[in-house]
């Protein structure tokens, strides 16, 4: 019955486009087979140049089927999976799986095809030209669409729930495996396409195609119910999960991503993730839209730089890094509280404008070197690297025969810092103070009527967020070796805000994922620097249109924006049940005319 009602829902949504349920299986099989065919077909009518990507993408240099690698391998596997899911009886959440696989195939094919057309100089590159034909891309896109159609015909029901009553060892093993897979996926994602740059024009498309694959894979796993199962298990074995997750994060240098470059990227992501979590306190919990937030990170960076003993620093005070970072955090926090206090009298849009102005004041002051503490346009260069016992954090490390890349200590440090920031966020959220923040976000007057001193609570939110940003800023300056006003402009504030909203307001994994995406994408799309912001903006628009609740939504946020209740039932079903109930009440004989429940 569930299945039928959701099919009806799907039909209502997209009109006559959705084929009948009977067509679901053939559509899925055809789509899957087409995806396999696409993987084996040539994709380009001529040879781009030397290198692994185009070589395998052309007709004459492609040795199918033995050398199926990269995006072709992903398409092949997705195709096989789709056929299997279509033919095997009783696959849980079949519709969702097919839909995820379909969009995955579609995204991989579309990204690759668009890239080939764009770089190959026209449609001929991906169809037929010079006596050669290459329809792999078009077949792939078609396969993806067919799979999505078959998913619509199957009907997308609720995510199936698996029993979570498993013995402890099984749960632990499952969690261990799951987190190891996450680690593997993260390292693959980071390194997918290699370093972006002039020498490697394929970094962007390979990375985007990989993201499409990863999204499809995670969607399919979620569709079967696996993701939910793991998340329930990890919630139940919280301590164990945290330890394993931390270990996995610390193990990243041992994977393919264990090079200087990726350590730097990962550290930068960590810095922005910590900042984004801080912003999440202000925006996600307390609902105070802060458009000048990156200024606090800047305060932390400049304070840290001035206390680092850099030659350009005016103060001439040299403090050990932990002390300097703490001082930076505290000063940023104090400034946060000071900035917060005049904003107490403004709400909503007005608050956003006041904070925007503050951010601008900070950038301009730093640019003009007011007080001589920021170095102006020259920045403060030459901040010495953090070191412990003579080991500089930016040097490679060798521990018992294990060679670790340069910057690995910075990475370890930021992992621990992000872990601590996460703990701070989670603890505050589940406390009297966190509830007060959320209450203010929901209804400030009602919050005051409940005895909450809203002014104090708001200042505390600003203070907490600014402290975290200041800490991240100090680490940022030391890692980078310079502190420049350039790094703390309005655009950074907006990007951080986008990271929070994109990832999912009020959640920790959301902020981390959002920060990772927003700061890796530009890195990977370096070759397309002209179109980088365009692609970036388009991606944001699409994600906000199709997943307004964010990538990892809060339970309640999901309920609010995705038309689902907290238990994941669709609002439509709930409403239908309510209408039915109402009707039965309406027919009750003792009904009084006065009881009009409008």
């Amino acid at each position, binding site marked *: 019955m569930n299945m039928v009602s959701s099919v009806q829902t799907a039909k209502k949504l997209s009109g006559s486009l959705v084929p009948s349920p009977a067509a679901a299986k053939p559509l899925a099989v055809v789509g899957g087979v087409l995806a396999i065919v696409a993987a084996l077909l040539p994709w380009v009518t001529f040879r781009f140049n030397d290198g692994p990507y185009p070589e395998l993408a052309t007709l004459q240099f492609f040795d199918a089927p033995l050398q199926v690698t990269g995006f072709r391998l992903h398409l092949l596997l997705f195709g096989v999976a789709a056929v299997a899911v279509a033919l095997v009886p009783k696959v849980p959440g079949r519709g969702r799986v097919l839909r995820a696989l379909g969009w995955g195939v579609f995204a991989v094919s579309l990204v690759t095809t668009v890239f080939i057309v764009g770089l190959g100089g026209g449609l001929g590159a991906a169809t037929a030209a010079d006596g050669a034909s290459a329809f792999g891309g078009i077949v792939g896109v078609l396969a993806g669409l067919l799979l999505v159609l078959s998913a619509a015909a199957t009907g997308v029901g609720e995510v199936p729930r698996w029993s979570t009553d498993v013995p402890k060892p099984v749960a632990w093993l499952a969690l261990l495996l799951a987190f190891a897979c996450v680690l593997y996926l993260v390292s693959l994602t980071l390194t997918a396409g290699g370093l972006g740059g002039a020498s490697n024009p394929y970094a962007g498309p390979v990375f985007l195609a990989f993201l499409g694959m990863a999204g499809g894979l995670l969607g399919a796993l979620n569709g079967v119910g696996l993701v939910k199962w793991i998340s329930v298990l990890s919630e139940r074995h919280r301590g164990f999960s945290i330890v394993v997750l931390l270990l996995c994060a610390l193990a990243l240098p041992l994977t393919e991503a264990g090079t200087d470059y990726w350590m730097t990227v990962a550290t930068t992501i960590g810095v922005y993730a910590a900042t984004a979590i801080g912003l999440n306190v202000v925006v996600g919990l307390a609902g105070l839209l802060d458009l000048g937030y990156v200024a606090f990170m800047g305060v932390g960076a400049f304070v840290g730089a001035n206390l680092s003993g850099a030659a350009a620093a005016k103060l001439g005070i040299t403090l050990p890094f932990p002390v300097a970072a703490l001082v930076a955090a505290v000063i940023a926090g104090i400034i946060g509280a000071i900035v917060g206090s005049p904003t107490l009298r403004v709400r909503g849009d007005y608050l956003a404008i006041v904070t925007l102005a503050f951010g601008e004041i900070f950038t301009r002051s730093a640019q003009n070197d007011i007080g001589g503490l920021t170095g102006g346009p020259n920045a403060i260069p030459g901040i010495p690297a953090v070191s412990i016992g003579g080991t500089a954090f930016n040097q490679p490390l060798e521990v018992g025969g294990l060679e670790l890349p340069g910057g690995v200590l910075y990475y370890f440090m930021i992992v621990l810092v992000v872990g601590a920031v996460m703990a*701070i966020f989670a*603890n*505050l959220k589940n*406390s*009297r*103070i*966190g*509830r*007060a923040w*959320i*209450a203010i976000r*929901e*209804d400030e*007057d*009602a*919050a*005051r*009527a*409940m*005895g*909450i*001193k*809203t002014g104090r609570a708001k200042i*505390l939110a600003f203070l*907490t967020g600014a402290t975290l940003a200041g800490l991240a800023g100090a680490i940022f300056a030391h890692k980078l070796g310079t502190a420049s006003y350039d790094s703390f402009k309005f655009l950074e504030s907006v990007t951080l805000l986008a990271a929070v909203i994109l990832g999912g307001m009020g959640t920790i994994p959301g902020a981390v994922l959002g920060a990772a995406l927003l700061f890796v994408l530009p890195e990977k799309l370096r070759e397309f620097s002209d179109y980088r912001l365009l692609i970036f903006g388009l991606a944001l628009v699409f994600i906000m249109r199709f997943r307004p609740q964010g990538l990892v939504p809060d339970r*309640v*946020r999901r*309920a*609010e924006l995705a038309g689902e*209740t*907290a238990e994941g039932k669709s609002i439509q079903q*709930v409403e239908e049940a309510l209408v039915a109930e109402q009707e039965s009440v309406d027919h009750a004989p003792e009904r*009084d005319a*006065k*009881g*009009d*429940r*409008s």
Partner: protein
Amino acid sequence: MTALAQDTAHPVLEARGVTMVFGGLTALNDVSLRLDRGKIVGLIGPNGAGKTTFFNCLTGLYTPTKGTVLLSGRRLAPDPSEVTIAGVARTFQNIRLFPNMTVLENVLVGRHCRMRQGPIASLLHGPSFRREENAAKQRSRELLAFVGLASAEDEIARNLPYGDQRRLEIARALATDPKVLLLDEPTAGMNPQETEAARQLIFAIRDTGVSVVVIEHDIKFIFGLCDSVSVLVQGELLVEGRPEVVRADPRVIEAYLGKPPEEIESETRGAAEQDKREKP
């Protein structure tokens, strides 16, 4: 609840000559009200008579132009959070829950002003933090059971049916351990069964030692509930007294109902409904 023991000389809540002027408009003119311990006082009056304005003056949302509000003889500061901390809780005419929090979380927010955890304790989640948190949760669950929402604690407040939202608002207000509870139209939009349940709930609240002020349009409801009724007309206190006295007062009948006494019984219901339909 400890406050119950002290100070029996003063009424628990007293408003003296409250006047509220908005620009050139006098919304309230010299309104006084006296609420004795363990009593229920009703506040009635036609639309626009200033009932909600009076509530807002009592709870500190507005600062009265003239006059004072006393709780057990002590002056209340005109600040909503201070008033709530002192022991006056309220509900709102148009329900104002925290829509995206769960039912239990809504009530826990009500416990806020009776909890002591500071920022450091909230960061560290130590043993005393957990004790207080568990105690607050337990008290909140008791209150939810008291208003009949025990099974709904994990629901999102916004998804509750209308009547349950009203009850949740009362539970949230009770969570602040008030001496006085101000209810702004607690039965608006309810059917007769729900109204009767609300009446029983208010009696039960009174029996726990909380004094109650109720604004209502449903005159039958008010007269069956209150120990004393005040009638507010165009910002002025017209009459106050025991329900049967107020009910028979010709000025009330004229100002509020505009009908001769013989017809009150039959028309009262109609007038109340008329009012309701005019409300948004």
